[in-house]
């Protein structure tokens, strides 16, 4: 039985300034499960995430973490909640002036009274867990995109969070790295008792990871339920959303239309003083 809190959105409208991005959200991310917040680019997934994290107040409605209203938490309760929340941002959001070990150690140094050797032991453990145990003294600009994300994940996990939020963890990664990161998230989910919310538009990740799926679009919540329920849906928009991915997988490879050889004659007269023209065939033969 999981003790990780559920996250409930009651009639929540989110946006920036006076402009709503998504309205009237009534969603419950179940505690101790891996939920995925899915939708097309610009549909407001990251905006919803930032509001759940308390970075911005919602324009309307209530966000409940467990049974506590985020908007009515006392300062101490909010601080306590943040310290048990881990976030993996899109590009890791590691502090550029700190080494990897200092980045991961930062929450421990700020919020615990652990001695430095103990902090270093935890840091080493978390970095080993994500496969970066060898890169303790590197700075974020010395890491690849995938390594930065894994380092961000290590930092998010260093305080043993009850909730882990990941903002597009596989964006910008090649399919192999994406699959590795998905696998890593699954391992973390098994190792820590936590509620995980992953924002993504990667349908392959959704199908392989999600216990619970929320789909946003058209400024509202279009679907929430299990992956099996989603696959059975008859909603035309959702079918298009899901089938589009299937079409992409099964689609034949695009072929180039035939090119008229006359079109390949490149006029270099302006560059070469009018003496030469180069044919693609000539260059290829050389």
């Amino acid at each position, binding site marked *: 039985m999981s003790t990780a809190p559920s996250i409930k959105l009651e009639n929540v409208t989110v946006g920036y300034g006076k402009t709503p991005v998504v309205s009237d959200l009534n969603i419950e991310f179940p505690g101790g499960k891996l939920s995925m917040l899915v939708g097309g680019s610009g549909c407001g997934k990251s905006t919803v995430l930032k509001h759940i994290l308390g970075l911005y107040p919602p324009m309307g409605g209530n966000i409940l973490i467990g049974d506590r209203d985020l908007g009515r938490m006392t300062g101490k309760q909010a601080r306590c909640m943040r310290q048990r929340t881990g976030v993996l*941002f899109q590009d890791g959001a590691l502090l*550029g002036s700190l080494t990897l070990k200092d980045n991961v150690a930062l929450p421990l140094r700020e919020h615990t009274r652990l001695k430095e050797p103990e902090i270093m032991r935890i840091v080493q453990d978390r970095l080993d867990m994500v496969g970066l145990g060898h890169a303790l003294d590197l700075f974020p600009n010395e890491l690849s995109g995938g390594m930065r994300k894994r380092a961000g994940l290590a930092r998010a996990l260093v305080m043993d969070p009850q909730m882990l939020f990941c903002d597009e963890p596989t964006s910008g990664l090649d399919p192999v790295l994406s699959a590795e990161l998905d696998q890593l998230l699954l391992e973390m989910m098994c190792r820590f008792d936590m509620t995980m919310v992953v924002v993504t538009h990667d349908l392959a990740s959704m199908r392989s990871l999600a216990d619970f799926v929320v789909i946003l679009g058209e400024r509202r919540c279009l679907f929430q339920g299990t992956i099996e329920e989603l696959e059975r849906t008859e909603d035309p928009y959702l079918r298009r959303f899901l089938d589009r991915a299937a079409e992409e997988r099964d689609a034949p490879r695009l072929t180039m239309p035939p090119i008229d050889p006359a079109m390949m004659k490149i006029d270099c007269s302006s560059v070469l003083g009018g003496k030469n023209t180069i044919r693609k065939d000539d260059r290829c033969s050389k």
Partner: protein
Amino acid sequence: MAEKTRGKALHLFPWRIFRDAADEVGSLTLFLVDSLRLVFAGLGQFPKIVRQVYFIGVQSVSVIALIGLFTGMVMGMQLYYALSVFGADGFLGTGVALSMVRELAPVLTAIMLTGRAGSAMTAEIGVMRISEQIDALSIMDVNPMRYLVAPKMAACLVSFPILTAFFNLIALWGGWLTGVKLLGANAGVYWSRVQGSLDWDDIEGGFLKSIVFGVLVCTICCFEGYYTHQRSGHAGPEGVSQSTTNAVVKSCVVILAADYILTSLLW
């Protein structure tokens, strides 16, 4: 209908500007109070403050020395020519000392530090904002104001007066170089006038100005970077560059305005 709308818009326009300006000044004041409150929040701040003093203070010494030297040399030359017309070149030391200590040293030091360190502060914090590093700090329950802004504020409070004193020193030497060594004024009279004409009030006023300028520069530069994501119409790197330009321009204007007000109040 169109006339009515236009009339309404004209009626509202100045108030909107006034409201926006009041809003910005209010936010800036709250930002200033918050950063000053957090300056000495715990011993953990000390290494960060030392790093910032090195960046803002130590790394600015050479540029301040150069500006101080040439400003002093120009003042020495101009005042010598002007005073010698009336046979009063003996007052060269008085002129150089008072103009430097009361006005030029605090103002020019602050403007130079705005260009060198203030712009860097804005860019650093702005980049951290657009790359979600500040959000990450908030989520980790690390107060970004305490972590990022307060050490810079503390470093400005330390660096601005020290660099102003250094500017004074070099500028007085620069005035001696042109006035005495190049143009032939009496060295003993020059230094005696420098010593005799400066009261403690002058030095205290100069230092007070430099502290106020330090607080203003740090507040404006950090504020512009911190809220770079709220800049309408400019997102991402363009927003950071816009914020940096704004920070430098606003800081320079505010330094000169504050200088006028402080001069009026102090002397």
